[in-house]
């Protein structure tokens, strides 16, 4: 099976990726929970400015992979190189402060708070005034809050969610919640944005909107995106390169057309006895 794995650092037919730098590299990462192996010896990279899709059947280890990247899980083996430096074991909030933002498969918003507050919470790391200023609630702290508020309003405009600015997010329909969650991640001005099934449970129109936002974020803000998605149409349209996982192992890696044609991928999706 390994013969078919195509590991292309600089995929052919994609000249724009050629001069890009490496943003993140995962080398031989393995992760297990007790006796259950979630990820086995996976290596791949994410280059600056690309949209990288991670696909695979349910239980393939895609979300675990994202969790490893943003520090929720610590792999037992392997290394993660972030911007050219091998990363030590880090906590999620450290990953966040280094510019990794994410959304979740099952929307993880702060349900009691409004859309505005949810997105503002994405600015947590960008606010630097200390406790005392904050308590005083005037002067620099206040000025800072206003600046951040402006940034957040820009994001709200960008995502076209002005109308629900003050609505508690628990009340919103699922599609909008996903959009707010994207907004919160964008508020962090991340270098790498991890999207875990951004289009799950959406109708066609919502999927088209979301696709447009993802492409815009990638092109206008230059944000690198790694996304997990089950809708193959979306994956093939959006992504520059695709990595395919199955049973915690990598079975293909390359540009969408190539991956689509790979026998191992077809087998994984259609089901072949293992």
């Amino acid at each position, binding site marked *: 099976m390994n013969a078919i794995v195509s590991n292309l650092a600089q995929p052919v037919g994609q000249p724009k990726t050629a001069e890009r730098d490496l943003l993140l590299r995962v080398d031989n990462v393995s992760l297990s929970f007790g006796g259950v192996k979630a990820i086995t010896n996976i290596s791949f990279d994410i280059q600056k400015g690309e949209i990288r899709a991670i696909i695979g059947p349910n239980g393939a280890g895609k979300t675990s992979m994202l969790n490893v990247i943003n520090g929720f899980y610590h792999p037992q083996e392997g290394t993660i190189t972030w911007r050219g430096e091998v990363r030590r074991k880090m906590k999620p909030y450290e990953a966040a402060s280094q510019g990794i933002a994410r959304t*979740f498969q099952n929307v993880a918003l*702060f349900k*009691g*708070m409004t859309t505005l507050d949810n997105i503002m919470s*994405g600015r*947590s*790391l960008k*606010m630097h005034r200390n406790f005392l200023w904050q308590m005083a609630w005037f002067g620099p702290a206040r000025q800072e809050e206003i600046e951040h508020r402006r940034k957040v309003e820009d994001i709200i405009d960008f995502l076209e969610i002005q109308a629900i600015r003050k609505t*508690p997010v*628990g009340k919103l329909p699922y599609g909008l919640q996903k959009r707010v969650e994207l907004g919160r991640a964008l508020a962090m001005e991340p270098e790498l944005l991890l999207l875990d099934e951004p289009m799950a449970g959406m109708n066609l129109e919502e999927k088209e909107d979301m696709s447009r936002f993802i492409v815009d974020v990638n092109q206008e803000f230059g944000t690198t995106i790694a996304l997990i998605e089950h809708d193959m149409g979306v994956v093939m349209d959006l992504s520059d390169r695709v990595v395919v996982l199955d049973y915690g192992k990598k079975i293909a890696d390359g540009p969408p057309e190539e991956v689509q044609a790979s026998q191992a991928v077809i087998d994984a999706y259609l089901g072949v006895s293992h």
Partner: protein
Amino acid sequence: MLYDIFIGPFVQMVEMPDFFLQVLWEGFVAGILYALIALGFVLIFKASGVFNFAQGIMVVFAGLTLVGFYESGVPALLALLLTIGVMGALAYGIERFVMRPLVNQPDIILLMATIGLTYFLIGLGEFVFGGEPKRMIAEELGLPTGSTAIEMGERGLVILQHIDIAAAVIAILMVTALGIFFNKTRIGRALRAVADDHQAALSVGISLNQIWAIVWFAAGLVALATGIMWGARSDVSFALEIVAFKALPVLILGGFTSIPGAIIGGLIIGFGEKIGEIYWGGLVGGGIESWLAYIIALIFLLFRPQGLFGERIIERV
């Protein structure tokens, strides 16, 4: 009978306004003290979505520590500072050894952890300070004693205990400071974020460890203030822990997540209890003070389950 319920008590109130005012004052003071306890619960609930079973014992523990330091020969004010230090260390310890390993666990697990913490603190308190009630060093801390009698013209007297006035002032100050801290600052937003969703909070770069340590420390300070105030009125003993559960109806009334709610709820319970006991208690043989609060809370639950100021969380299913 109807007269006794609907008319008699009010006639009494008007006929003896001095007595009525005295009752109101008693209710006010009790309310403030309930509010102080409830405040401790609210802080933890806001930050972790958990009813902190250990808040009551933290009140006792703080009080005992303060008296303990004083009895071992430390000057009163230094003892107070040291106790604040102990509460800080306790907050760090709870964060490090209880909360941190339980990140992302269901709320019920965290609740069980606080029950465990309760028994740990009871054991530790008894081991270090012994089981006997101790006298609170209110005077030594510079809290006023004595009382003032206000004359009501020819009608009579209202007596105000100075310690009660001090309790009211301290409670109001603490509530204002905490209110500003948690509603107007980034920390406040972070706190609500943490309470809603651990993973999401982590992913936007909020440090759970830091937030939890801050919150448990704040709850520790509130516990200390409560311990001093309750202790000054009775004694510092493990029985205070039970009194702390009076905070439960207060929280149901005010909402588990609202600092102003804790205050208003505390006052409603305080006034309700005293007035109910004095003017209506006789009808059922008295002693209604101990359960009236729960009845008020139950009635409230029927109409406003989220409390007066609680967050109304609507979940789409």
